[in-house]
């Protein structure tokens, strides 16, 4: 590492921080100075109006003053919102609309092709298998991750080493998907049968009498093994949220049930489960959406080869590697369309809850 290589980067960081100070500080100063200036001007105007109006009528000024005050608040509010709104419009809203338009155009974004990109998705065998893979991901990851998280949360609840035990499961949340993929790729590592294995899975498999496998090159098993990585990451999230929900169950209910002599099994199904229903739904929804967008794991482990592609990965390949902007955009739009029903379900669920 040469310092001369790193200096420009650190300069960039410095510029970034200075820009931050200038933008945010400047905004705050602007918000302070500008309204104060307006206030002074308005005061002067009011004074002038008052001295002039005192001769004619005393009724008009109050209503006018209120309308002036309202307008000022509106302008001020917009000022507070200005950076956010500007960035959202430039960085999210306009691009999203453009992506939608691009999805009806060809690879060079020159000619309109109608629905061709969408029919292509379902007609092409490879892409169809990408869609099926995504479906498998979205079904398995939320189910298994939530189940593991729930079981673990119930088991360690009020156990002696609860916080340490929870931290162990929760830790993968802090690890990047890339890091997690390398961790698991190492578990799945393969060497041919005559050598000692370095991957844990093949080691165990060999001890059980199996022949070492190239796990990540064998469909459909490899998709399942990639799903394991995602479950490993997401179970901690499920566990933390569900554990908080379990702790929020009123102690009286639990005591009452215990006095009635319910078994732990009944307690779980009849007290715990109904009480944490809403948290369960939130976890499943959140994990489902995260799973729909999964990209890093597939990219790092197999790069979508060996029949492991998912929508987000294929979208990246089409749009940024093959230069097929239209097809990539169509996949992005399809991803968006898949998210919508999940969100609608959750919003309806939340609303139902508020009414109860």
């Amino acid at each position, binding site marked *: 590492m040469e310092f001369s*290589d*790193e200096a*420009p*980067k*650190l*300069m960039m960081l410095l510029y*970034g921080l200075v820009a*931050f100070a200038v933008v945010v500080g400047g*905004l705050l100063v602007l918000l302070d100075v500008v*309204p104060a200036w307006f206030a002074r001007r308005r005061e002067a105007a009011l004074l002038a109006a008052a001295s002039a109006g005192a001769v004619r009528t005393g009724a008009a000024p109050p209503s006018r003053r209120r309308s002036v005050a*309202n307008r000022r608040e*509106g302008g001020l*509010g917009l000022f*507070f*919102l200005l950076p*956010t709104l500007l*960035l*959202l419009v*430039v*960085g*999210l809203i*306009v*691009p999203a609309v453009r*992506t939608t338009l691009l999805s009806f155009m060809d690879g060079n974004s020159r000619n309109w092709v109608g629905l061709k990109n969408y029919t292509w998705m379902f007609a092409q065998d490879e892409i169809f298998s990408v869609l099926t893979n995504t479906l498998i991901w979205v079904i398995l990851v939320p189910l298994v991750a939530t189940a*593991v998280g729930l*079981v*673990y949360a119930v088991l360690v609840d009020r*156990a002696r080493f*609860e*916080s340490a035990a929870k931290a162990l*499961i*929760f*830790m993968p949340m802090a690890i*990047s998907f*890339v*890091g997690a993929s*390398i961790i*698991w790729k*190492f578990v799945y*590592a393969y060497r041919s049968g005559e050598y*000692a294995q*370095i991957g844990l899975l093949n080691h165990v498999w060999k001890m059980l009498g199996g022949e070492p496998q190239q796990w990540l090159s064998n469909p459909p098993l490899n998709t399942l093994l990639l799903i394991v990585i995602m479950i490993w990451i997401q179970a901690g*999230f499920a566990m*933390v949220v569900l*554990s908080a*929900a379990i702790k*929020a169950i009123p102690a009286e209910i639990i005591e009452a049930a215990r006095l009635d002599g319910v078994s732990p099994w009944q307690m779980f199904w009849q007290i715990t489960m109904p009480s944490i229903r*809403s948290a369960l739904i*939130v976890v499943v929804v959140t994990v489902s959406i995260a799973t729909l967008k999964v990209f*890093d794991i597939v990219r*790092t*482990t197999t*790069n979508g080869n060996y029949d492991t592609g998912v929508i987000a990965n294929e*979208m*990246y390949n089409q749009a940024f590697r093959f230069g097929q902007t239209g097809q*990539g*955009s169509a996949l*992005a739009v399809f991803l*968006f369309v898949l*998210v919508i029903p999940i969100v609608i379900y959750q919003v309806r669920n939340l609303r139902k809850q508020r009414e109860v």
Partner: protein
Amino acid sequence: MTTTTPPALLTPPTRPTGPETRAARVRRRLNNPVATGISIVIAVIWTIPTFGLFVSSFRPEDEIKTTGWWTAFTDPQFTLQNYQEVLFGRSSSSGQLAGYFINSMVITIPSVLFPLAFAALAAYALSWINFRGRDWIYIGIFALQIVPLQMALVPLLSFFSEGASVFGIPLTPAWNLEDEGKFIQVWFAHTCFALPCAVFLLHNFVSQLPKDLMEAARVDGASHPKIFRSIVLPLIVPALAAFGIFQFLWVWNDLLVALIFAGGGNETAPLTVRLAELAGTRANEWQRLTSGAFISIVVPLIVFLSLQRYFVRGLLAGGVKG
């Protein structure tokens, strides 16, 4: 919702249990070795992969490539050579991760600060300044959370490289960022993508501040900017910390945005991009992959372990309400 205010998370619960129930609890625990067994099995399965990687990263190259990491316990041989090489090695195949580590830093810090400041301002305006259409703007920002960032990638990249135009009339010029300048693109993209969630989380918090406090300050003649700076900011520090950690982990661990907006060059690409590349092209160089992966993991792990409480609080506020 009942789950939004859990009692002190990840700390031993302080339930009013007398000595009798505690004895009963211990008996119940002892009676239930199955439960203990299952939880230990899950904990072990969840920890072993990371542990294996950690142990391997300290083993000599020949050992990693020929024997499993579990043999290190019977035949311990450890070295720091892998870290030395993957961080500072001269050959192009060695990783040279030190430079990428700095890139990750340069990308992450502004990408956390900008959305934090802008979202705090917006959250304040949306909760405490009266103006027409306020609720609609809030609902709009809230709804933007569900737009996958994949929807924005292609046009945003062309916005940077070609500028924006409407019906052939150019509105903004191309940014033409080269080398280190690409950091600006990444900051911009991360800030845009973080804002909906940030505004939502902070709005949850800011709008819960006591109304009396705000009104008292208004009556005393404090302007909105003054209230924001001297009353609101100090009060929402926990929420800022929660979102800050959230965003830090997200940006540090991100691959997709960096891949597209920072490119693969060693001037701007972060650790994740470099590691993904190494995992693809040098898939069997485990001495580099294990130590490299650990280098990328260690910073978020420290942040996470030291600030876990804030992080969990943020997660619950966002996840459970979201």
